[in-house]
């Protein structure tokens, strides 16, 4: 119950601080934001590309095996493009972000809490939410679309390689990808990615702020950031799927 109350307080404080930034943007710590953004992108990029590539490869193999029976393997490219742009690209990237960046946020802020650095900020009159959480949440939110694009491109390359091996020329695969992809579909996927990034950043920072000063406190915070992040991603993805179905998007 205390954790829930703390989460609500953190949400409210984060929202108010973010609102305050709109009126006083100079108070935003751009240096910290840039550092967190760079770390989220550069640290997460190799694994995101690898997983995106393997995902495209696996999707292509599994679906081609079934569609080949009907002579429809050429439509594998359509399926991979829709699957990656709408759903799997943002989803898998967000899971990677939760594992790498969300846990890192929780560990960094948690260690600062154990070392009384958050208390030091408070007694300077610097709200830890503005100083530590906002730049990180913004960084995770903006890093997600960048990483998502990379994962999607890697996935397309992976799929194209499999199709090439199955005798579908690269130009045909590319035509199918271009025909089936719309600006709305790609934008929707990236916006979804940004939402997932927001959730991962928020939950990572919250877990850090709620770290207990015990021997395993920081470890527990990092674990709960990953678990909480993945659960939040799955739940919000489900809600978005229902909304898309109802609105026929």
């Amino acid at each position: 119950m205390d954790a829930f109350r703390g989460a609500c307080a953190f949400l409210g404080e984060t929202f108010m601080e973010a609102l305050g930034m709109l009126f006083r943007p100079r108070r935003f710590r751009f240096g910290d934001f840039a550092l967190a953004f760079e770390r989220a992108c550069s640290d997460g990029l190799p694994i995101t590309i690898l997983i995106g590539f393997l995902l495209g490869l696996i999707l292509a193999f599994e679906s081609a095996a079934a569609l080949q029976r009907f002579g429809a393997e050429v439509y594998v490219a359509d399926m991979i493009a829709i699957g990656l742009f709408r759903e799997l690209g943002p989803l898998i990237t967000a899971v990677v972000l939760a594992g790498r960046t969300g846990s890192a946020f929780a560990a960094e802020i948690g260690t600062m809490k154990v070392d009384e650095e958050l208390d030091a900020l408070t007694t300077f009159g610097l709200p830890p939410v503005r100083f530590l959480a906002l730049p990180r949440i913004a960084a995770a939110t903006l890093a997600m679309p960048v990483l998502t694009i990379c994962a999607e491109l890697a996935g397309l390359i992976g799929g194209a390689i499999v199709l090439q091996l199955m005798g579908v020329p690269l130009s045909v695969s590319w035509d199918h990808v271009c025909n089936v992809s719309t600006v709305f579909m790609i934008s929707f996927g990236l916006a979804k990615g940004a939402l997932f990034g927001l959730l991962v950043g928020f939950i990572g920072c919250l877990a850090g702020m709620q770290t207990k000063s015990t021997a395993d406190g920081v470890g527990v915070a990092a674990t709960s950031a990953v678990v909480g992040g993945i659960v939040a991603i799955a739940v919000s993805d489900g809600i978005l799927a229902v909304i898309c179905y109802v609105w026929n998007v």
Partner: protein
Amino acid sequence: MQQNSDIIALHHVNAGYPGAVILEDVTFEVKTGEIFILLGGSGCGKSTIMKHMIGLNPILGGSLTISGMEWNDRNRAALYRMIGVMYQSGALFGSMNLLQNVMLPLEEFTRMKRKERIERAQELLSRVGLADAAQKMPSEISGGMKKRAAIARAMALDPAILFLDEPSAGLDPITSSALDDLILKLRAEQGMTFVVVTHELPSIFKIADRCAMFDKARRGLIALGDPRELRTSSTDSFVLDFFNRGERHG
């Protein structure tokens, strides 16, 4: 040193956390310019009292004022300007070097130009004997240096009161004594009020003007005054035992 007016006043304060009262009915005042020690055994609540005094936790009852102001949303910003805190671990920001650590409050709360901020931070580091370590990261320096850097950072905005949480903890006797000398030097130079949480008797006898002693079993304040007098003239057996046994071991 002028030590007339009360800069901190606690009246019938209940200290602790919601649902857990640690100390009851605590009443004492800290005078301007004095070095006041909060002492007692481990877990007696001295750090808890300090957390109330620096506004990190709300008191559970009674009244606590600093320069006549209570810790509430209206006074909070003004009170933060009046205090500086050195935490037990130093609490330096690990991603910044010592100069940047000291410059941080200057960046946030003054209109100083960058050059002025650097000069001011250098001056503060010199005052605590760390002029040559300005570019070092907290991970590259010793525990004693961390504490001195934390004092420099706490002094950045010229606070009226400096709170020190266990400054001697984890330090060897020589470093600890050097830190005591620094506290005395800063008080003499700047006339600051110091509130120090410690149970190190050599340090207490060296720097304290007055002290407040707490006891976990009685959940309250059990002695208030000059520690040198309390050591000989207290009527409380716990107080006598604390000072004299410690003295024998010290």
